């Protein structure tokens, strides 16, 4: 079960993973739409008062495309037998835990709390400590979901490229950073 959650790519590949990834992307985009989340970076998500219908979908398309191109280019330089279908499927499916994080904004809860914190200004004592408890607990959910996302991405990339050396592992980390920077630049230009 643990292997299936963190490394399904050892058992499944190609079309089944791609199909699951497509379903995950659609579910994630609908969750983004329902809970007003913008995926404005490869490893970024922010809540907004209201998002337009197409926004979470286009966000995900851009994020998946950037992550795919960067990981595929680095994957090919590590092992020239790396297949694009594997990398694309991995990128699409790995983002599923990230999409689940949108659930923390049910009824705009996290967004409203964020706004309240912003309005506190110089008077942080004006907030009731018990009010922080639920948002802090919800924020704590984000961390394991992010770890799950990166773990899926790493395990999938490792399987697809036969990653072994520390140098290659460092290249994976660099790929994620490059993808994040590129996505931030793209979103800055677009919006």
């Amino acid at each position: 079960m643990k292997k299936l959650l963190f490394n399904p790519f050892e058992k499944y590949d190609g079309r089944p993973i791609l199909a699951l990834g497509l379903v995950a992307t659609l579910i994630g985009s609908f969750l983004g739409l329902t809970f007003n989340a913008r995926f404005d970076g490869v490893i970024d998500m922010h809540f907004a008062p209201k998002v337009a219908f197409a926004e979470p979908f286009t966000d995900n398309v851009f994020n998946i495309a950037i992550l795919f191109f960067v990981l595929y280019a680095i994957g090919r330089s590590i092992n020239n037998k790396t297949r694009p279908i594997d990398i694309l499927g991995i990128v699409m499916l790995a983002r599923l835990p990230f999409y689940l994080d949108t659930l923390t904004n049910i009824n705009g809860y996290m967004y409203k709390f964020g706004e309240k914190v912003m309005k506190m200004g110089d008077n942080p004592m004006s907030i009731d400590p018990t009010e922080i408890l639920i948002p802090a607990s919800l924020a704590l959910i984000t961390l394991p979901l992010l770890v799950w996302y990166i773990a899926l991405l790493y395990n999938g990339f490792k399987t697809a490229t036969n990653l072994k050396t520390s140098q290659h592992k460092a290249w994976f980390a660099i790929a994620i950073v490059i993808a994040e920077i590129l996505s931030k630049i793209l979103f800055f230009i677009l919006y």
Partner: protein
Amino acid sequence: MHTPKLPVNCPSCSGSLHVSQLSCPACSTQVSGNYPLPVLLQLPADEQTFILQFFLSGGSLKEMASQTGVSYPTMRNRVDDLIEKIKQLSPEE
């Protein structure tokens, strides 16, 4: 009947073992000498079985992957690792 496992490494120093004696089970003729083990016999039993399965499946990675219930990249990685190992075991020409 249990088939004894062919030892390929020295239990004392882990070095590669050579064949020093062979015998005919029919007439008990014995041949002595110093023969290095062929590369394939230097591999552990599970890897020898894997190579045999791969050969019997017509060298198809996809078929091997579906037979063993692993993904294609996992199977390809296993074959690549084995190729690398065999290259290291093979005497340089």
